[in-house]
Protein backbone atom coordinates (compact mmCIF):
# COMPACT_ATOMS: atom_id res chain seq x y z
CA UNK A 1 0.00 0.00 0.00
CA UNK A 2 1.17 3.51 -0.72
CA UNK A 3 1.68 6.06 2.03
CA UNK A 4 -1.21 8.26 2.96
CA UNK A 5 -0.67 12.01 3.12
CA UNK A 6 -2.76 14.61 4.90
CA UNK A 7 -4.16 17.04 2.35
CA UNK A 8 -6.83 19.64 1.85
CA UNK A 9 -9.55 18.56 -0.55
CA UNK A 10 -8.68 21.34 -2.98
CA UNK A 11 -5.02 20.33 -3.02
CA UNK A 12 -5.95 16.68 -3.53
CA UNK A 13 -7.86 17.68 -6.68
CA UNK A 14 -4.86 19.60 -8.00
CA UNK A 15 -2.31 16.85 -7.35
CA UNK A 16 -4.64 14.16 -8.71
CA UNK A 17 -5.11 16.18 -11.89
CA UNK A 18 -1.34 16.33 -12.34
CA UNK A 19 -1.14 12.56 -11.75
CA UNK A 20 -3.81 12.12 -14.42
CA UNK A 21 -1.61 13.88 -16.95
CA UNK A 22 -3.18 17.33 -16.85
CA UNK A 23 -0.47 19.87 -17.68
CA UNK A 24 -2.65 22.92 -18.34
CA UNK A 25 -4.64 24.76 -15.71
CA UNK A 26 -6.46 28.08 -16.14
CA UNK A 27 -8.30 29.75 -13.28
CA UNK A 28 -9.36 32.91 -11.54
CA UNK A 29 -9.29 33.45 -7.78
CA UNK A 30 -12.52 32.81 -5.89
CA UNK A 31 -13.17 31.45 -2.41
CA UNK A 32 -13.43 28.58 -1.41
CA UNK A 33 -11.45 26.94 -4.26
CA UNK A 34 -8.39 29.17 -4.61
CA UNK A 35 -6.05 26.54 -3.12
CA UNK A 36 -6.38 24.65 -6.40
CA UNK A 37 -4.98 27.63 -8.33
CA UNK A 38 -2.30 28.24 -5.70
CA UNK A 39 -1.22 24.59 -5.83
CA UNK A 40 -1.10 24.62 -9.63
CA UNK A 41 0.86 27.90 -9.62
CA UNK A 42 3.54 26.17 -7.52
CA UNK A 43 3.61 22.80 -9.25
CA UNK A 44 3.02 23.42 -12.95
CA UNK A 45 6.20 25.43 -13.68
CA UNK A 46 8.26 22.63 -12.08
CA UNK A 47 6.87 19.91 -14.33
CA UNK A 48 6.80 21.82 -17.61
CA UNK A 49 3.10 22.55 -17.36
CA UNK A 50 1.07 25.71 -17.76
CA UNK A 51 -0.53 27.61 -14.92
CA UNK A 52 -2.18 30.80 -16.05
CA UNK A 53 -4.29 33.17 -13.97
CA UNK A 54 -6.81 34.32 -16.53
CA UNK A 55 -8.39 37.78 -16.63
CA UNK A 56 -11.80 36.27 -15.87
CA UNK A 57 -13.59 32.95 -15.53
CA UNK A 58 -14.86 33.54 -19.06
CA UNK A 59 -11.33 33.76 -20.41
CA UNK A 60 -10.22 30.77 -18.31
CA UNK A 61 -12.86 28.44 -19.73
CA UNK A 62 -12.04 29.60 -23.27
CA UNK A 63 -8.35 28.88 -22.68
CA UNK A 64 -9.52 25.43 -21.58
CA UNK A 65 -11.43 25.19 -24.88
CA UNK A 66 -8.21 26.00 -26.77
CA UNK A 67 -6.11 23.34 -25.03
CA UNK A 68 -8.90 20.76 -25.21
CA UNK A 69 -9.11 21.43 -28.97
CA UNK A 70 -5.47 20.29 -29.19
CA UNK A 71 -6.45 17.02 -27.51
CA UNK A 72 -4.54 17.59 -24.27
CA UNK A 73 -5.86 17.09 -20.72
CA UNK A 74 -6.88 20.44 -19.28
CA UNK A 75 -8.89 21.78 -16.38
CA UNK A 76 -10.26 24.85 -14.68
CA UNK A 77 -11.79 25.32 -11.26
CA UNK A 78 -14.02 27.88 -9.64
CA UNK A 79 -16.85 28.33 -7.18
CA UNK A 80 -20.52 29.00 -7.82
CA UNK A 81 -20.58 32.63 -9.09
CA UNK A 82 -17.47 31.93 -11.17
CA UNK A 83 -18.98 28.75 -12.58
CA UNK A 84 -21.98 30.79 -13.73
CA UNK A 85 -19.56 32.92 -15.74
CA UNK A 86 -18.06 29.81 -17.33
CA UNK A 87 -21.38 28.50 -18.60
CA UNK A 88 -21.08 30.07 -22.05
CA UNK A 89 -17.74 28.37 -22.60
CA UNK A 90 -18.98 25.07 -21.15
CA UNK A 91 -21.82 25.03 -23.68
CA UNK A 92 -19.30 25.60 -26.51
CA UNK A 93 -17.05 22.83 -25.17
CA UNK A 94 -20.04 20.47 -25.03
CA UNK A 95 -21.18 21.59 -28.49
CA UNK A 96 -17.72 21.01 -29.97
CA UNK A 97 -17.48 17.58 -28.24
CA UNK A 98 -14.30 18.41 -26.36
CA UNK A 99 -13.08 16.62 -23.23
CA UNK A 100 -12.22 18.82 -20.23
CA UNK A 101 -12.56 18.86 -16.45
CA UNK A 102 -14.38 21.68 -14.67
CA UNK A 103 -14.31 21.77 -10.87
CA UNK A 104 -17.01 23.59 -8.90
CA UNK A 105 -16.29 23.96 -5.17
CA UNK A 106 -19.76 25.24 -4.37
CA UNK A 107 -20.63 28.12 -2.05
CA UNK A 108 -23.97 29.57 -0.97
CA UNK A 109 -26.01 31.88 -3.17
CA UNK A 110 -27.74 33.15 -5.28
CA UNK A 111 -25.86 36.23 -6.45
CA UNK A 112 -22.67 36.90 -4.55
CA UNK A 113 -24.13 34.76 -1.77
CA UNK A 114 -21.53 33.74 0.79
CA UNK A 115 -18.35 31.74 1.02
CA UNK A 116 -19.66 28.84 3.11
CA UNK A 117 -20.38 25.42 1.59
CA UNK A 118 -23.47 24.71 -0.45
CA UNK A 119 -24.98 22.23 -2.89
CA UNK A 120 -27.25 24.68 -4.60
CA UNK A 121 -25.64 24.43 -8.04
CA UNK A 122 -27.15 20.96 -8.50
CA UNK A 123 -29.66 22.12 -11.12
CA UNK A 124 -26.99 24.09 -13.00
CA UNK A 125 -24.56 21.16 -13.00
CA UNK A 126 -26.92 18.30 -13.81
CA UNK A 127 -29.43 19.93 -16.16
CA UNK A 128 -26.97 21.52 -18.55
CA UNK A 129 -26.10 24.88 -17.02
CA UNK A 130 -25.46 26.80 -20.20
CA UNK A 131 -27.67 27.20 -23.25
CA UNK A 132 -29.29 24.36 -25.20
CA UNK A 133 -29.23 20.56 -25.38
CA UNK A 134 -26.29 19.04 -23.53
CA UNK A 135 -25.19 17.30 -20.36
CA UNK A 136 -22.02 17.22 -18.34
CA UNK A 137 -20.90 14.07 -16.59
CA UNK A 138 -21.21 15.21 -12.96
CA UNK A 139 -19.16 13.53 -10.24
CA UNK A 140 -19.85 14.20 -6.54
CA UNK A 141 -17.01 13.34 -4.15
CA UNK A 142 -17.74 12.83 -0.45
CA UNK A 143 -14.20 12.69 0.94
CA UNK A 144 -10.76 14.08 0.23
CA UNK A 145 -9.86 10.63 -1.15
CA UNK A 146 -12.74 10.85 -3.60
CA UNK A 147 -11.73 14.40 -4.54
CA UNK A 148 -8.55 12.78 -5.88
CA UNK A 149 -10.06 9.57 -7.28
CA UNK A 150 -12.96 11.25 -9.08
CA UNK A 151 -10.68 13.91 -10.54
CA UNK A 152 -8.71 11.13 -12.24
CA UNK A 153 -11.93 9.34 -13.21
CA UNK A 154 -13.29 12.62 -14.57
CA UNK A 155 -10.42 13.01 -17.04
CA UNK A 156 -10.82 9.41 -18.20
CA UNK A 157 -14.58 9.74 -18.74
CA UNK A 158 -14.20 13.06 -20.55
CA UNK A 159 -11.69 11.54 -22.96
CA UNK A 160 -13.66 8.33 -23.43
CA UNK A 161 -16.91 10.04 -24.39
CA UNK A 162 -15.70 13.47 -25.62
CA UNK A 163 -17.94 15.05 -22.99
CA UNK A 164 -16.88 17.75 -20.51
CA UNK A 165 -16.95 16.47 -16.94
CA UNK A 166 -17.73 18.45 -13.81
CA UNK A 167 -16.44 17.60 -10.37
CA UNK A 168 -19.22 19.02 -8.17
CA UNK A 169 -17.74 19.57 -4.75
CA UNK A 170 -18.41 22.07 -1.98
CA UNK A 171 -16.58 24.40 0.37
CA UNK A 172 -16.38 21.84 3.18
CA UNK A 173 -14.75 19.15 1.08
CA UNK A 174 -12.48 21.76 -0.52
CA UNK A 175 -11.23 23.09 2.79
CA UNK A 176 -11.13 20.04 5.04
CA UNK A 177 -8.07 17.85 5.52
CA UNK A 178 -8.13 14.07 5.46
CA UNK A 179 -5.57 11.37 4.79
CA UNK A 180 -5.44 10.57 1.12
CA UNK A 181 -3.60 8.04 -0.97
CA UNK A 182 -2.64 9.43 -4.35
CA UNK A 183 -2.46 6.59 -6.83
CA UNK A 184 0.03 6.37 -9.66
CA UNK A 185 -2.02 6.76 -12.78
CA UNK A 186 -1.52 5.51 -16.29
CA UNK A 187 -3.93 7.76 -18.17
CA UNK A 188 -6.24 5.86 -20.49
CA UNK A 189 -4.85 6.53 -23.95
CA UNK A 190 -7.53 7.73 -26.33
CA UNK A 191 -6.87 8.52 -29.98
CA UNK A 192 -7.89 12.08 -30.88
CA UNK A 193 -7.77 12.31 -34.66
CA UNK A 194 -10.05 15.38 -34.47
CA UNK A 195 -7.50 17.51 -32.59
CA UNK A 196 -6.23 20.75 -34.13
CA UNK A 197 -2.53 20.05 -33.81
CA UNK A 198 -1.64 21.39 -37.26
CA UNK A 199 -2.15 19.44 -40.50
CA UNK A 200 1.63 18.97 -40.99
CA UNK A 201 0.57 19.11 -44.65
CA UNK A 202 -0.42 15.45 -44.29
CA UNK A 203 -4.21 15.58 -43.92
CA UNK A 204 -7.27 17.73 -44.55
CA UNK A 205 -7.76 20.49 -42.00
CA UNK A 206 -9.55 19.68 -38.76
CA UNK A 207 -12.23 22.07 -37.54
CA UNK A 208 -13.31 22.34 -33.90
CA UNK A 209 -16.70 23.94 -34.05
CA UNK A 210 -20.22 24.05 -32.68
CA UNK A 211 -21.81 26.08 -35.51
CA UNK A 212 -24.15 24.30 -37.91
CA UNK A 213 -26.30 26.68 -39.92
CA UNK A 214 -28.23 23.85 -41.55
CA UNK A 215 -30.79 22.78 -38.95
CA UNK A 216 -30.99 19.20 -40.21
CA UNK A 217 -27.26 18.82 -39.58
CA UNK A 218 -27.40 20.49 -36.16
CA UNK A 219 -30.25 18.18 -35.21
CA UNK A 220 -28.15 15.21 -36.29
CA UNK A 221 -25.20 16.28 -34.13
CA UNK A 222 -27.49 16.66 -31.13
CA UNK A 223 -29.03 13.24 -31.66
CA UNK A 224 -25.59 11.65 -32.04
CA UNK A 225 -24.48 13.32 -28.79
CA UNK A 226 -27.56 12.05 -26.96
CA UNK A 227 -26.77 8.54 -28.18
CA UNK A 228 -23.43 8.91 -26.40
CA UNK A 229 -25.29 10.22 -23.34
CA UNK A 230 -27.52 7.13 -23.42
CA UNK A 231 -24.40 4.96 -23.39
CA UNK A 232 -23.01 6.91 -20.44
CA UNK A 233 -26.31 6.44 -18.58
CA UNK A 234 -26.04 2.71 -19.21
CA UNK A 235 -22.35 2.26 -18.39
CA UNK A 236 -21.17 4.87 -15.95
CA UNK A 237 -23.68 5.25 -13.10
CA UNK A 238 -21.96 5.18 -9.70
CA UNK A 239 -23.53 5.16 -6.25
CA UNK A 240 -22.99 3.77 -2.78
CA UNK A 241 -25.56 1.86 -0.72
CA UNK A 242 -25.21 1.96 3.06
CA UNK A 243 -27.33 -0.30 5.31
CA UNK A 244 -29.96 -0.67 2.59
CA UNK A 245 -30.40 -4.50 2.87
CA UNK A 246 -33.24 -4.41 5.38
CA UNK A 247 -34.03 -0.69 5.17
CA UNK A 248 -37.62 0.53 5.51
CA UNK A 249 -36.64 4.15 4.98
CA UNK A 250 -34.06 5.56 2.59
CA UNK A 251 -31.95 8.67 2.96
CA UNK A 252 -30.64 10.07 -0.33
CA UNK A 253 -27.67 12.41 -0.05
CA UNK A 254 -24.44 13.15 -1.91
CA UNK A 255 -21.18 14.88 -1.10
CA UNK A 256 -20.78 16.39 2.35
CA UNK A 257 -24.51 15.91 3.08
CA UNK A 258 -23.98 12.13 2.77
CA UNK A 259 -21.26 12.24 5.44
CA UNK A 260 -23.65 13.92 7.87
CA UNK A 261 -26.41 11.53 6.83
CA UNK A 262 -24.34 8.40 7.51
CA UNK A 263 -23.99 9.50 11.12
CA UNK A 264 -27.73 10.10 11.32
CA UNK A 265 -28.46 6.66 9.84
CA UNK A 266 -26.30 5.01 12.51
CA UNK A 267 -28.04 7.02 15.26
CA UNK A 268 -31.48 6.13 13.88
CA UNK A 269 -30.52 2.45 13.72
CA UNK A 270 -29.50 2.69 17.38
CA UNK A 271 -33.01 3.96 18.08
CA UNK A 272 -34.50 1.00 16.21
CA UNK A 273 -35.45 2.69 12.93
CA UNK A 274 -34.46 0.56 9.93
CA UNK A 275 -33.00 3.21 7.66
CA UNK A 276 -30.35 3.11 4.96
CA UNK A 277 -28.60 5.54 2.64
CA UNK A 278 -28.19 5.76 -1.10
CA UNK A 279 -25.38 8.11 -2.07
CA UNK A 280 -25.24 9.10 -5.72
CA UNK A 281 -21.59 9.43 -6.82
CA UNK A 282 -22.54 10.34 -10.37
CA UNK A 283 -25.22 13.05 -10.22
CA UNK A 284 -25.47 12.85 -14.00
CA UNK A 285 -26.06 10.10 -14.92
CA UNK A 286 -28.31 9.87 -11.87
CA UNK A 287 -28.66 6.43 -10.21
CA UNK A 288 -32.36 6.32 -11.03
CA UNK A 289 -32.56 2.51 -11.29
CA UNK A 290 -31.09 1.99 -7.81
CA UNK A 291 -33.65 4.39 -6.34
CA UNK A 292 -36.49 2.82 -8.28
CA UNK A 293 -35.48 -0.58 -6.97
CA UNK A 294 -35.32 0.80 -3.43
CA UNK A 295 -38.79 2.29 -3.83
CA UNK A 296 -40.18 -1.25 -4.15
CA UNK A 297 -39.15 -2.08 -0.61
CA UNK A 298 -38.83 1.13 1.45
CA UNK A 299 -41.80 3.10 2.79
CA UNK A 300 -40.47 6.61 2.23
CA UNK A 301 -37.43 8.69 1.26
CA UNK A 302 -35.73 11.71 2.75
CA UNK A 303 -33.27 13.74 0.69
CA UNK A 304 -30.65 15.66 2.61
CA UNK A 305 -29.31 18.66 0.72
CA UNK A 306 -27.44 21.92 1.27
CA UNK A 307 -29.99 23.74 -0.91
CA UNK A 308 -33.66 24.58 -0.94
CA UNK A 309 -34.27 21.15 -2.46
CA UNK A 310 -32.92 20.39 -5.92
CA UNK A 311 -31.92 16.72 -6.10
CA UNK A 312 -35.28 15.87 -4.52
CA UNK A 313 -36.87 16.44 -7.94
CA UNK A 314 -34.68 13.75 -9.52
CA UNK A 315 -35.47 11.37 -6.65
CA UNK A 316 -39.21 11.86 -7.19
CA UNK A 317 -38.79 11.32 -10.93
CA UNK A 318 -36.64 8.21 -10.38
CA UNK A 319 -39.23 6.55 -8.12
CA UNK A 320 -42.10 7.85 -10.25
CA UNK A 321 -43.62 9.42 -7.12
CA UNK A 322 -44.53 5.95 -5.84
CA UNK A 323 -43.47 6.74 -2.26
CA UNK A 324 -43.40 9.94 -0.21
CA UNK A 325 -40.18 11.98 -0.42
CA UNK A 326 -39.42 14.64 2.16
CA UNK A 327 -36.64 17.18 2.30
CA UNK A 328 -34.16 17.76 5.11
CA UNK A 329 -32.11 20.76 4.21
CA UNK A 330 -30.09 23.78 5.23
CA UNK A 331 -29.03 26.45 2.79
CA UNK A 332 -27.03 29.65 2.40
CA UNK A 333 -23.86 28.04 3.69
CA UNK A 334 -25.40 26.18 6.64
CA UNK A 335 -24.86 22.43 7.10
CA UNK A 336 -27.47 20.23 8.81
CA UNK A 337 -26.25 18.47 11.95
CA UNK A 338 -26.59 14.69 12.28
CA UNK A 339 -29.27 15.45 14.93
CA UNK A 340 -31.33 17.47 12.44
CA UNK A 341 -31.14 14.65 9.91
CA UNK A 342 -31.97 12.12 12.65
CA UNK A 343 -35.03 14.17 13.57
CA UNK A 344 -36.19 14.10 9.95
CA UNK A 345 -35.78 10.32 9.82
CA UNK A 346 -37.60 9.78 13.13
CA UNK A 347 -40.47 12.08 12.08
CA UNK A 348 -40.75 10.33 8.73
CA UNK A 349 -40.85 6.92 10.45
CA UNK A 350 -43.68 8.20 12.66
CA UNK A 351 -45.69 9.68 9.77
CA UNK A 352 -45.25 6.90 7.21
CA UNK A 353 -45.81 3.54 8.90
Amino acid at each position, binding site marked *: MKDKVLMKGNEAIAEAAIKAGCRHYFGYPITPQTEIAAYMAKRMPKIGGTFLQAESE*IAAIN*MVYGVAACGLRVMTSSSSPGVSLKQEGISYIAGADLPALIVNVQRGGPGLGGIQPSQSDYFQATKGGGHCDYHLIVLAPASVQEMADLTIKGFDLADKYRVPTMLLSDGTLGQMMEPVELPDVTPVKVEKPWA*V*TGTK*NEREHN*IVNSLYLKPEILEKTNIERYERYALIEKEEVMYEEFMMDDAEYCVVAYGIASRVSKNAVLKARAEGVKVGLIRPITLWPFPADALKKASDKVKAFVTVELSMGQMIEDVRLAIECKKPVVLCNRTGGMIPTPEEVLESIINLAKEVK
Partner: protein
Amino acid sequence: MKTVFSKPKALTNAPLHYCPGCTHGIIHRLVAEAIDELGILGKTVGVAPVGCSVMAYDYFACDMVEAAHGRAPAVATGLKRAMPDNVIFTYQGDGDLASIGMAETIHAATRNENITIIFVNNAIYGMTGGQMAPTSLPGQVTQTSPYGRDVSACGLPIKVSELLASLDAPYYIERVAVNNVKNIRNAKKAILKAFKNQTENKGFSLVEVVSTCPTNWGMTPQNALKWVDEKMIPYYPLGVYKDKGAEEKEDK
Protein backbone atom coordinates in the same frame (compact mmCIF):
# COMPACT_ATOMS: atom_id res chain seq x y z
CA MET B 1 3.43 27.50 -69.15
CA LYS B 2 4.47 30.03 -66.54
CA THR B 3 2.02 30.51 -63.67
CA VAL B 4 1.63 34.20 -62.96
CA PHE B 5 -1.22 34.07 -60.48
CA SER B 6 -2.81 31.35 -58.36
CA LYS B 7 -4.92 30.83 -55.30
CA PRO B 8 -2.82 30.58 -52.14
CA LYS B 9 -2.50 27.05 -50.73
CA ALA B 10 -3.72 28.34 -47.38
CA LEU B 11 -7.18 28.93 -48.85
CA THR B 12 -9.57 26.03 -49.47
CA ASN B 13 -11.76 25.78 -52.56
CA ALA B 14 -14.91 26.70 -50.61
CA PRO B 15 -16.72 29.65 -52.22
CA LEU B 16 -16.71 32.69 -49.91
CA HIS B 17 -20.12 33.81 -48.65
CA TYR B 18 -19.23 37.49 -48.35
CA CYS B 19 -21.38 40.23 -49.92
CA PRO B 20 -20.30 41.76 -53.25
CA GLY B 21 -17.71 44.47 -52.66
CA CYS B 22 -16.86 43.40 -49.12
CA THR B 23 -13.13 43.49 -48.47
CA HIS B 24 -13.01 40.37 -46.25
CA GLY B 25 -12.02 38.39 -49.35
CA ILE B 26 -8.94 40.58 -49.89
CA ILE B 27 -7.93 40.25 -46.24
CA HIS B 28 -8.40 36.46 -46.30
CA ARG B 29 -6.14 36.32 -49.31
CA LEU B 30 -3.45 38.46 -47.67
CA VAL B 31 -3.48 36.20 -44.59
CA ALA B 32 -3.27 33.10 -46.79
CA GLU B 33 -0.40 34.56 -48.84
CA ALA B 34 1.50 35.31 -45.64
CA ILE B 35 1.02 31.72 -44.43
CA ASP B 36 2.17 30.38 -47.81
CA GLU B 37 5.21 32.63 -48.00
CA LEU B 38 6.38 31.65 -44.52
CA GLY B 39 5.78 27.95 -45.30
CA ILE B 40 3.81 27.47 -42.08
CA LEU B 41 0.51 26.04 -43.36
CA GLY B 42 1.05 22.65 -41.72
CA LYS B 43 1.63 24.13 -38.28
CA THR B 44 -0.83 27.01 -38.34
CA VAL B 45 -4.09 26.93 -36.37
CA GLY B 46 -6.60 29.72 -36.93
CA VAL B 47 -9.40 30.91 -34.68
CA ALA B 48 -12.58 32.15 -36.32
CA PRO B 49 -14.76 34.73 -34.55
CA VAL B 50 -18.48 35.34 -34.34
CA GLY B 51 -19.52 37.86 -36.97
CA CYS B 52 -19.31 38.01 -40.75
CA SER B 53 -16.12 35.94 -40.82
CA VAL B 54 -17.61 33.24 -38.58
CA MET B 55 -17.17 30.69 -41.35
CA ALA B 56 -13.50 31.53 -41.93
CA TYR B 57 -12.88 28.01 -40.63
CA ASP B 58 -14.14 26.71 -43.99
CA TYR B 59 -11.94 29.08 -45.99
CA PHE B 60 -8.51 28.64 -44.43
CA ALA B 61 -6.84 25.31 -45.19
CA CYS B 62 -5.02 25.10 -41.86
CA ASP B 63 -6.59 23.54 -38.74
CA MET B 64 -9.31 25.87 -37.43
CA VAL B 65 -11.26 26.48 -34.24
CA GLU B 66 -14.51 28.39 -33.96
CA ALA B 67 -14.58 30.58 -30.83
CA ALA B 68 -17.44 32.15 -28.91
CA HIS B 69 -18.10 35.85 -29.58
CA GLY B 70 -15.09 37.86 -28.43
CA ARG B 71 -13.23 34.95 -26.87
CA ALA B 72 -10.80 34.22 -29.71
CA PRO B 73 -7.72 35.67 -27.92
CA ALA B 74 -8.41 33.41 -24.89
CA VAL B 75 -8.91 30.36 -27.15
CA ALA B 76 -5.73 31.29 -29.02
CA THR B 77 -3.91 31.54 -25.68
CA GLY B 78 -4.96 27.97 -24.89
CA LEU B 79 -3.90 26.76 -28.35
CA LYS B 80 -0.51 28.48 -28.09
CA ARG B 81 0.21 27.29 -24.55
CA ALA B 82 -0.71 23.74 -25.56
CA MET B 83 1.36 23.72 -28.76
CA PRO B 84 3.98 26.48 -28.54
CA ASP B 85 5.62 25.46 -31.82
CA ASN B 86 2.42 26.02 -33.78
CA VAL B 87 1.50 29.37 -35.30
CA ILE B 88 -1.81 30.63 -33.92
CA PHE B 89 -3.85 33.45 -35.40
CA THR B 90 -7.26 34.92 -34.73
CA TYR B 91 -9.37 36.74 -37.30
CA GLN B 92 -11.87 39.06 -35.59
CA GLY B 93 -14.24 41.90 -36.36
CA ASP B 94 -14.85 45.11 -34.43
CA GLY B 95 -17.85 43.93 -32.40
CA ASP B 96 -16.07 40.71 -31.52
CA LEU B 97 -12.70 42.19 -30.59
CA ALA B 98 -13.47 45.70 -29.39
CA SER B 99 -16.85 45.27 -27.70
CA ILE B 100 -17.67 41.89 -26.19
CA GLY B 101 -14.09 40.63 -26.32
CA MET B 102 -12.21 43.72 -25.14
CA ALA B 103 -11.05 42.11 -21.89
CA GLU B 104 -9.66 39.07 -23.71
CA THR B 105 -7.96 41.35 -26.26
CA ILE B 106 -6.28 43.66 -23.74
CA HIS B 107 -5.11 40.83 -21.51
CA ALA B 108 -3.69 38.76 -24.38
CA ALA B 109 -1.85 41.94 -25.45
CA THR B 110 -0.54 42.69 -21.99
CA ARG B 111 0.69 39.12 -21.59
CA ASN B 112 2.50 39.68 -24.90
CA GLU B 113 0.93 36.36 -25.84
CA ASN B 114 2.85 35.07 -28.84
CA ILE B 115 -0.11 35.09 -31.23
CA THR B 116 -1.17 37.02 -34.32
CA ILE B 117 -4.47 38.91 -34.45
CA ILE B 118 -6.04 40.16 -37.65
CA PHE B 119 -8.58 42.77 -36.56
CA VAL B 120 -11.05 43.80 -39.24
CA ASN B 121 -12.57 47.20 -38.49
CA ASN B 122 -15.49 48.13 -40.73
CA ALA B 123 -17.31 50.24 -38.15
CA ILE B 124 -20.44 48.11 -38.08
CA TYR B 125 -21.91 44.73 -37.08
CA GLY B 126 -22.32 43.10 -40.48
CA MET B 127 -23.55 39.60 -39.74
CA THR B 128 -26.54 40.69 -37.65
CA GLY B 129 -27.62 43.23 -40.25
CA GLY B 130 -25.80 46.50 -39.57
CA GLN B 131 -25.88 47.61 -35.96
CA MET B 132 -23.68 50.22 -34.28
CA ALA B 133 -20.19 48.96 -33.44
CA PRO B 134 -17.73 50.30 -30.85
CA THR B 135 -15.88 51.67 -33.88
CA SER B 136 -18.89 53.26 -35.65
CA LEU B 137 -18.09 56.89 -36.45
CA PRO B 138 -19.83 59.83 -34.74
CA GLY B 139 -23.08 60.45 -36.55
CA GLN B 140 -22.89 57.13 -38.45
CA VAL B 141 -26.35 55.80 -39.26
CA THR B 142 -26.86 52.13 -38.39
CA GLN B 143 -29.85 49.99 -37.50
CA THR B 144 -29.35 50.72 -33.78
CA SER B 145 -28.30 54.35 -34.30
CA PRO B 146 -30.99 55.28 -36.84
CA TYR B 147 -30.52 59.02 -36.20
CA GLY B 148 -26.75 58.72 -36.36
CA ARG B 149 -24.35 57.72 -33.57
CA ASP B 150 -25.18 60.13 -30.76
CA VAL B 151 -21.90 60.62 -28.95
CA SER B 152 -23.62 62.16 -25.94
CA ALA B 153 -25.42 58.86 -25.35
CA CYS B 154 -23.08 56.27 -26.91
CA GLY B 155 -19.70 57.88 -26.48
CA LEU B 156 -16.95 58.06 -29.02
CA PRO B 157 -15.46 55.22 -31.07
CA ILE B 158 -12.68 53.10 -29.64
CA LYS B 159 -9.36 53.41 -31.43
CA VAL B 160 -8.07 49.92 -30.81
CA SER B 161 -4.54 50.30 -32.16
CA GLU B 162 -3.90 53.47 -30.14
CA LEU B 163 -5.42 51.86 -27.04
CA LEU B 164 -3.32 48.70 -27.24
CA ALA B 165 -0.18 50.66 -28.11
CA SER B 166 -0.51 52.42 -24.76
CA LEU B 167 0.29 49.09 -23.07
CA ASP B 168 3.94 48.35 -22.40
CA ALA B 169 3.88 44.68 -23.31
CA PRO B 170 2.65 44.08 -26.88
CA TYR B 171 5.28 43.72 -29.59
CA TYR B 172 3.74 45.01 -32.78
CA ILE B 173 0.60 46.95 -33.65
CA GLU B 174 -0.15 48.49 -37.03
CA ARG B 175 -3.26 49.87 -38.71
CA VAL B 176 -3.65 49.35 -42.44
CA ALA B 177 -6.43 49.56 -45.03
CA VAL B 178 -7.37 47.60 -48.14
CA ASN B 179 -9.28 50.22 -50.13
CA ASN B 180 -6.67 50.75 -52.87
CA VAL B 181 -3.68 48.94 -54.35
CA LYS B 182 -1.11 50.92 -52.40
CA ASN B 183 -2.86 50.28 -49.11
CA ILE B 184 -3.32 46.60 -49.92
CA ARG B 185 0.41 46.24 -50.55
CA ASN B 186 1.13 47.86 -47.19
CA ALA B 187 -1.47 45.66 -45.50
CA LYS B 188 0.22 42.59 -46.96
CA LYS B 189 3.58 43.67 -45.53
CA ALA B 190 2.06 44.25 -42.09
CA ILE B 191 0.23 40.91 -42.02
CA LEU B 192 3.35 39.06 -43.14
CA LYS B 193 5.31 40.78 -40.39
CA ALA B 194 2.67 39.94 -37.78
CA PHE B 195 3.03 36.23 -38.62
CA LYS B 196 6.81 36.36 -38.94
CA ASN B 197 7.06 37.95 -35.49
CA GLN B 198 5.32 34.93 -34.04
CA THR B 199 7.61 32.45 -35.78
CA GLU B 200 10.51 34.36 -34.19
CA ASN B 201 8.81 34.21 -30.74
CA LYS B 202 8.55 37.98 -30.54
CA GLY B 203 5.08 38.09 -29.02
CA PHE B 204 1.75 39.79 -29.53
CA SER B 205 1.20 41.18 -33.02
CA LEU B 206 -2.03 42.81 -34.12
CA VAL B 207 -2.88 44.28 -37.50
CA GLU B 208 -6.00 46.43 -37.61
CA VAL B 209 -7.39 46.40 -41.13
CA VAL B 210 -9.79 49.22 -41.97
CA SER B 211 -12.38 47.48 -44.09
CA THR B 212 -15.72 48.08 -45.78
CA CYS B 213 -19.32 46.98 -45.50
CA PRO B 214 -21.10 48.24 -48.62
CA THR B 215 -24.27 46.28 -47.78
CA ASN B 216 -24.82 47.72 -44.32
CA TRP B 217 -23.29 51.11 -45.07
CA GLY B 218 -25.89 51.32 -47.84
CA MET B 219 -23.29 52.16 -50.51
CA THR B 220 -21.99 50.81 -53.77
CA PRO B 221 -18.64 49.05 -53.39
CA GLN B 222 -16.92 51.99 -55.12
CA ASN B 223 -18.48 54.54 -52.78
CA ALA B 224 -17.60 52.35 -49.79
CA LEU B 225 -13.93 52.42 -50.79
CA LYS B 226 -14.17 56.19 -51.13
CA TRP B 227 -15.84 56.45 -47.71
CA VAL B 228 -12.85 54.63 -46.21
CA ASP B 229 -10.58 57.35 -47.61
CA GLU B 230 -12.81 60.28 -46.72
CA LYS B 231 -14.25 59.23 -43.34
CA MET B 232 -12.61 56.16 -41.85
CA ILE B 233 -8.91 56.84 -42.39
CA PRO B 234 -9.08 60.43 -41.08
CA TYR B 235 -10.59 59.02 -37.86
CA TYR B 236 -8.42 55.91 -37.84
CA PRO B 237 -5.02 57.07 -39.15
CA LEU B 238 -2.97 54.34 -40.79
CA GLY B 239 0.50 53.54 -39.55
CA VAL B 240 2.69 51.63 -37.11
CA TYR B 241 1.56 52.21 -33.52
CA LYS B 242 4.05 49.94 -31.86
CA ASP B 243 7.01 48.05 -33.19
CA LYS B 244 9.42 46.89 -30.55
CA GLY B 245 11.58 45.34 -33.26
CA ALA B 246 12.16 48.75 -34.83
CA GLU B 247 12.66 50.35 -31.40
CA GLU B 248 15.35 47.78 -30.60
CA LYS B 249 17.11 48.55 -33.89
CA GLU B 250 17.05 52.29 -33.15
CA ASP B 251 18.53 51.68 -29.69
CA LYS B 252 21.49 49.93 -31.30
